[in-house]
């Protein structure tokens, strides 16, 4: 129990005194602490989040990571705003198993909701404590103390820096709920504070794990077949070990890596090792399209939602449709990379993994170390958009580095290794059936089939190397992510007020290919299906697509977002479409818990070639209180363009033995000559409202708006992504 101080007596009164006198007597009362906001609840001690040293230097800790989504900047804004300091006064330490709270994985658009909220409230607590300390020091009322510019100011002009104040208090205390936010003074939250990481990125500064250079560092390459399920044939390892610059060929069971003093030497050694050819030892891949193949496998029915309502009238009009998507690739532009260093019987790994804590646990198991001997430090990589090769390469680097204790090892995947081995976004099928009565939806049924959307390593068996070492670790068995978040069934529950509506997720555990989380998880497919289907129902009811949606939506913020996007687009005055030109609309609230996003789009379809050109995209987004509106716009713009690439161009290709999408030539993504002419994003700011996760909110609506616009342009609908020129032409011809 911390020392009884005058601050405590003044600030918290008799109850605190009682606590300090008899903790045990009050034990039962103390257990039932009220819920704290965000992840503060899991880590209630303030100094888990914020520390101030005697010089006034402020360090803020977050268990989340900068992925290029601007999180670092947003969290700095939140902390600086609440602590009334300049952003440059804040040092933000991100996900590091040695220093930061375990906030799980930076995923699911949870960072602002969980970490941002925690830091906001922790900072408010700290500000309150600083204010109280100053008040006690000056013997004035708390209300008379003002905090700004990194110091407390007394009515008579005296000031005390945060450093001095910090020596008067302890932050190793639990946060209190309901501490008021700062009211007076200049705001940072809600401004477009420029991203703190961009200056280095545009001037050649060190910015990524790929840029790390440690003394004595060796370069490594892992040696595998071309894609998951394949294995390289053994070759003359000794000859490779004698190549110039090669320090060692590391072999542990089936795991092979080559270490060299220069990076190019490691690459040449890899080439030599790959020249022996490869085999696929296990089962062949299915002959048919993956989305059909998985439906033949056993599935487990998981309920998504069940909205009550009277049964639909039997004379209602029944509309059915089936939608689908292929496997999709993350396709991170920079192949995954990690740096590992063994020292003092333990290992430090610099990694761009989205989850340093689960990674640490998995590595500890793989390397047979206690967790305390493994440190994972998040260091930025290129955009990952979910579970890519980052965790696997961390394991590869750790294993390679174990052979050379004391020397840092930098291991980077080759492009083809990232394409070939990264976990994919699952192929999916959605079947929808609805009944219309009096032009309103009277019944609705949603069925979605998918493999898992989470294969993130929680154990060594979730890492590629885990299956290669001898003895191998048991494969991780995926489980469906429960609602309300959901995996393949994410956003399967429409936000519309639908009576008599039910949804079932047919979770297919057995996956012919390696699958895991890709931005949005099931939302891309489910929102695509639901929003295309709403258009099909609207057409059947003879209604305008926007009016039809509004007629079924009671959520006020959803209505406002839809109307905003439509108004900014000029939906009411758009042409009726046809002859190759058309407009489309779509909406979703990510997970029905996070940001609201509506997208309107205008396209031109070349009937001869099937090419789609997007002339205009207008989106509106409601992320609650907007910490950094430009950051929100950036994420939505990016999500729109990325989703358009998925939806129009992308499908991972396989043959019986491996993934044939081995590089960008075999898996083309959108380039500058095919991006929209213009994209506008309008942010509705709601100060005081909870932060809502935004990073994945655009994937579904952009995809559906595109398909709806194409349908408006050519009067025929493509329901199976991607909407390639060949597919569009085929539908036009049928």
């Amino acid at each position: 129990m911390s020392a009884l101080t005058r601050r405590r007596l003044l600030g918290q009164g008799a109850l605190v005194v009682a606590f300090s006198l008899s903790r045990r007597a009050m034990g039962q009362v103390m257990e039932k602490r009220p819920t704290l906001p965000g992840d503060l609840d899991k880590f209630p001690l303030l100094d888990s989040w914020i520390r101030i040293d005697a010089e006034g230097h402020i360090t803020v800790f977050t268990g989340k990571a900068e992925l290029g989504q601007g999180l670092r900047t947003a969290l700095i804004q939140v902390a600086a705003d609440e602590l009334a300091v300049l952003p440059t006064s804040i040092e933000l330490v991100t996900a590091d198993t040695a220093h930061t709270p375990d906030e799980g994985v930076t995923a699911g658009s949870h960072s602002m909701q969980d970490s941002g909220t925690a830091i906001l409230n922790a900072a408010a607590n700290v500000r309150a404590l600083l204010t109280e300390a100053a008040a006690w020091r000056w013997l004035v009322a708390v209300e008379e103390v003002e905090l700004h510019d990194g110091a407390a100011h007394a009515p008579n002009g005296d000031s005390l820096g945060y450093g001095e104040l910090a020596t008067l208090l302890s932050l190793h205390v639990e946060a209190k709920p309901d501490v008021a936010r700062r009211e007076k003074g200049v705001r940072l939250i809600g401004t477009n504070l420029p991203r703190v990481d961009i200056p280095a990125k545009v001037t050649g500064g060190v910015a990524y794990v790929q840029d790390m250079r440690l003394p004595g560092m060796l370069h490594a390459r892992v040696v595998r077949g071309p894609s998951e399920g394949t294995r390289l044939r053994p070759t003359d390892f000794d000859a490779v070990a004698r190549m110039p610059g090669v320090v060692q060929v590391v072999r542990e069971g089936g795991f092979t890596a080559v270490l060299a003093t220069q990076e190019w030497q490691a690459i040449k050694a890899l080439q030599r090792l790959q020249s022996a050819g490869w085999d696929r030892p296990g089962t062949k891949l299915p002959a048919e399209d993956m989305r059909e193949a998985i439906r033949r496998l056993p599935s487990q029915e998981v309920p998504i939602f069940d909205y009550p309502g009277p049964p639909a009238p039997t004379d209602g009009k029944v509309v059915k449709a089936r939608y689908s998507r292929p496997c999709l690739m993350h396709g991170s532009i920079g192949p995954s990379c990690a740096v590992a260093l063994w020292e003092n019987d333990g290992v430090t790994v610099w990694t761009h993994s989205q989850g340093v804590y689960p990674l640490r646990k998995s590595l500890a198991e793989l390397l047979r170390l206690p967790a305390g001997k493994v440190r994972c430090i998040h260091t930025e990589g290129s955009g990952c958009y979910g579970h890519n090769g980052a965790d696997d390469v961390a394991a590869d680097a750790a294993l390679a580095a174990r052979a050379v204790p004391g020397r840092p090892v930098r291991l980077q995947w080759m492009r083809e290794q990232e394409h070939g081995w990264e976990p994919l976004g699952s192929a999916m099928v959605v079947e929808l059936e609805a009944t219309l009565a009096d032009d309103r939806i009277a019944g609705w049924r949603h069925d979605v089939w998918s493999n898992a959307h989470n294969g993130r390593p929680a154990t060594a068996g979730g890492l590629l190397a885990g299956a290669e070492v001898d003895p191998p670790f048991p494969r991780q068995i995926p489980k469906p992510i429960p609602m309300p978040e959901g995996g393949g069934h994410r956003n399967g529950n429409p936000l519309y007020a639908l009576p008599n509506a039910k949804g079932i997720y047919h979770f297919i555990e057995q996956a012919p290919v390696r699958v895991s989380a890709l931005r949005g998880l099931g939302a891309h497919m489910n929102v695509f299906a639901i929003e295309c289907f709403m258009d099909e129902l609207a057409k059947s009811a003879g209604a305008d697509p926007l009016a039809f949606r509004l007629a079924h939506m009671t959520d006020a913020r959803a209505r406002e977002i839809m109307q905003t996007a439509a108004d900014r687009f000029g939906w009411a005055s758009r042409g009726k479409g046809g002859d190759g030109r058309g407009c489309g609309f779509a909406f979703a609230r990510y997970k029905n818990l996070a940001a609201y996003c509506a997208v309107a789009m205008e396209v031109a379809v070349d009937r001869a070639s099937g090419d789609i050109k997007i002339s205009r995209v207008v989106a509106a987004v409601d992320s609650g209180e907007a910490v950094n509106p430009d950051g929100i716009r950036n994420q939505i713009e990016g999500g729109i363009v990325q989703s358009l690439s998925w939806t129009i161009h992308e499908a991972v290709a396989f043959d019986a033995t491996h993934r044939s999408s081995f590089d960008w030539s075999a898996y083309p993504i959108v380039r500058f000559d095919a991006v929209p002419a213009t994209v506008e994003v309008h942010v509705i700011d709601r100060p005081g409202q909870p932060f809502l996760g935004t990073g994945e909110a655009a994937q579904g609506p952009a995809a559906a708006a595109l398909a709806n616009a194409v349908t408006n342009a050519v009067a025929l609908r493509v329901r199976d992504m991607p909407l390639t020129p060949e597919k569009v032409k085929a539908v036009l011809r049928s």
Partner: protein
Amino acid sequence: MITLTVNGVSHQVDATPDTPLLYALRNDLALNGAKFGCGLGQCGACTVLVDDKPAFSCLLPIAALAERKVRTIESLGTREKPGALPAAFEAEQAAQCGYCIAGMIMRAQALLERNIRPTEAELRAHMAPNLCRCGTHMRILRAVRRAATAMGGGVRNGAEDAL
């Protein structure tokens, strides 16, 4: 030892002649700008200028360079005093993860040095060899337009041009 002229300075690099320029830049000269994205000439993350033309440094062996002048993003100013393109990218916040951006800037630099008044269609066609996976394309285009204007020119816009 191979001599390389990078950003106006002559360097002696102790690497084999077949070493692609990318690795010499990053590992021997500790220049971070050019990045490994694919090593195949398909993504442009490694783009630098060689005698004023954009080149994939991942596929350019240092033995091929001889006296030719290599320029990387580090030649376009510093954090404190960024050149027109880096400043424009910062002003437009034209980055998400940012991994492709150094390559984008060098690619754009080659265009603006050659033609300060490209059309929108020329700009998009010129940038096409460089990939961005985050979908930052719209901001990248805005940044290049902004830099062109700052350099005394400007991108000629036209709705038909863009398509």
